[in-house]
């Protein structure tokens, strides 16, 4: 059973989803798809997983649902261990995959009827359940239409409606707005907010920052199979201002070390340096000499806190992903 967290209990104990040290290697790959990954998601939250393509978001969802085998780690959902009781874990989820996953030659009503049976919804409740999910997804007038002939936005809404059948306590949404027109996107985001307000826990993956900022209570930033940061969005963004110096080319580690040491700074990666200072003008003046000595010209210099995009790039770098 999923119950709300007690205020005096540590997060791990009342997490509706508790993932510990998860590891997954695809055969033949030279790096793990999930690398020692841990997550704690509380009931009723909209939890966002932000990552570039190939970061491991979809793999994480599939492993969490038991659709892909893991190599190591533990997944506990609603008190059920995936290793011991995979079917109970799966039953807690409503899955809304990235691509529309239904039968294009069946009508909307036939698809909903079929997936209701697959969800083991009692026949007597099926009509009411169909009406409920159609109302949420705005599909009432499309019931008799073949799913494959619907527009892309309507197909996404049908994909959402199927995932909502049976009122699952956790919704697992894998980039549900990719390739969707602005109106349908807005509709889907509104629906997610409404569901979250009704108490549904939502696990939402995306690479759209504004969706994360709008929807999510907590966010995990993921790259190359690892969680680089996770927490409340406000906590992640509420950091002391820093002086950010970005270089156009890669700078050797020794040079970065020489530049950052006098200012209690750190190299985020080979092209980005962050320096802690309350006096950026003085800092720049002192840094100027060092840059000249190493014959380096910065590409950009900025000072202040971060928005999500800056945080994301700071953590994951700007290099193109494979």
């Amino acid at each position, binding site marked *: 059973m999923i119950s709300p967290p007690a205020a005096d209990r540590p997060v791990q104990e009342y997490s509706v989803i508790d993932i510990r040290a998860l590891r997954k290697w695809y055969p033949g790959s030279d790096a793990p798809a999930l690398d020692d990954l841990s997550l704690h998601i509380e009931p009723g939250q909209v939890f966002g997983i932000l990552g570039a393509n190939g970061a491991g978001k979809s793999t994480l969802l599939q492993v969490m649902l038991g659709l892909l085998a893991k190599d190591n780690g533990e997944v506990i959902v609603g008190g059920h261990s995936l290793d011991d009781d995979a079917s109970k874990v799966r039953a807690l989820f409503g899955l809304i995959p990235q691509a529309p996953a239904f*039968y294009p030659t069946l009508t909307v009503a036939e698809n909903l009827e079929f997936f209701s049976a697959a969800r083991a919804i009692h026949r007597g409740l099926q009509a009411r359940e169909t009406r409920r999910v159609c109302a949420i997804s705005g599909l009432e007038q499309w019931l008799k239409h073949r799913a494959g002939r619907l527009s892309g936005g309507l197909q996404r809404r049908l994909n959402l409606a199927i995932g909502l059948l049976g009122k699952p306590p956790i919704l697992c949404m894998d980039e549900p707005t990719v390739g969707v027109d602005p109106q349908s996107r807005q509709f889907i985001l509104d629906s997610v907010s409404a569901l979250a307000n009704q108490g549904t826990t939502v696990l939402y993956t995306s690479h759209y920052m504004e969706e994360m900022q709008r929807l999510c209570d907590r966010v995990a930033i993921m790259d190359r199979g690892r969680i680089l940061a996770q927490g409340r969005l406000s906590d992640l963004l509420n950091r002391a201002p820093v002086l950010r110096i970005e270089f156009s080319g890669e700078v050797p580690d020794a040079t970065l070390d020489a530049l950052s040491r006098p200012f209690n700074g750190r190299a985020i990666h080979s092209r980005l340096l962050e320096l802690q200072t309350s006096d950026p003008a003085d800092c720049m003046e002192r840094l100027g000499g060092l840059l000249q000595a190493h014959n380096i010209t910065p590409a950009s210099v900025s000072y202040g806190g971060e928005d999500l995009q800056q945080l994301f790039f700071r953590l994951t770098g700007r290099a193109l992903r494979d």
Partner: protein
Amino acid sequence: MRLIGALIRKEILLLTRDWHGLALLFVLPAVFICIMSLAMQDAHELGGSRQEPVRVLDLDDTDTSRTFVAELNALEAFRFQHVDAAATDRETLADAVQARDVGIALILPEGFSAMLQGGQDDALGLEVLHGPGLLPQVRELFALGVEGALTQAMLASALERLAPSWQPGGRAQQVLQDSSLTVISTPVYRGNSSRHTPNAVQQSVPAWLVFAMYFIVSPLASSLIIEREQGTLARLRQLNVPAGWVLGGRVLPYYAVNMVQLVLMLAVGVYLVPLLGGDQLTLGGSPAGLWVIASANSLAAIGFALLIASLSKTLIQATLLGGVITLIMGALGGIMVPKAVMPPGMQAAANLSPMSWGLEGFWHILLRLEGAAAALPEALALAGFGMVCWTLAAILHRRNL
């Protein structure tokens, strides 16, 4: 129970909305049966409507050579044309054969009568010209006919020498003809009714029906692969739908498709082929036997289709793999080329093809007019093949999930 019902209903809806797939399953084999039944009609009736043209050049031009040619005219499988010796030579005839104006040319040399009377048949020097495309059995039939006519001509010639009063067409020749032995060829069937004489439709319907049942490979494999590619299979798995049910939900709809094919193809043989000028299919006396062997063939075809779907990663792979293996099984199993005309080694290899088992099973019922029990060995072999395919498909399907 509701879930399996929903899986079956879903598959039936998908099938009935795929008009191209349905055309492939029903229309194509019906067309095959009509074409093959009509095209192969003469192959099952020696001396049927087709007569091979033969040009005869008689350079001897004697009573004996003319008697010999008259004997040849009695061969029903050939149509003889006599050419003028003054206007034609060997080269002209060879050109005509080469140009396929005529299938065979026969040249009777000068001195044919004299040599015939000498009784040295191997030194007669009759020359037969034929094109490279002439079927070996037609060539053999013609050679036998010529040898028979030569024997007749030699006997007549001997009689003429022994009885000087002998006249062509007279009493002596009558005696020769009357004493000829006739071979009576009778096909043996249960019931021994002349209605059940084997013909092209009797061979074509079961052959193409067996083949057509394997046409389900394409739609069945496609539906499973599309489910996998679109993520529907993952969604079903997330909903705790057992993998075995996902496969099993397809069995009943495709079994129904195979049974409709059975009824439709038999109806084509009984009603449509005769309308088009072919022979009529006779169904034998064992509907249960037809059902048993058709069901076993269906189980084998469904198992094979599931295996192809589980082996293939993409639609193209499934189409190619399924299509090529089905064709090979058909070619090997006597669907396209009757096993009877295969050399012994190939006949032994043909027995490895499940389509050959299916065909033999149908022939027990349709050709040999036997009952279900006679078709049981083939039915059991097909069911066994189907079960092996199903098991492998289930293992691979789980691995692919």
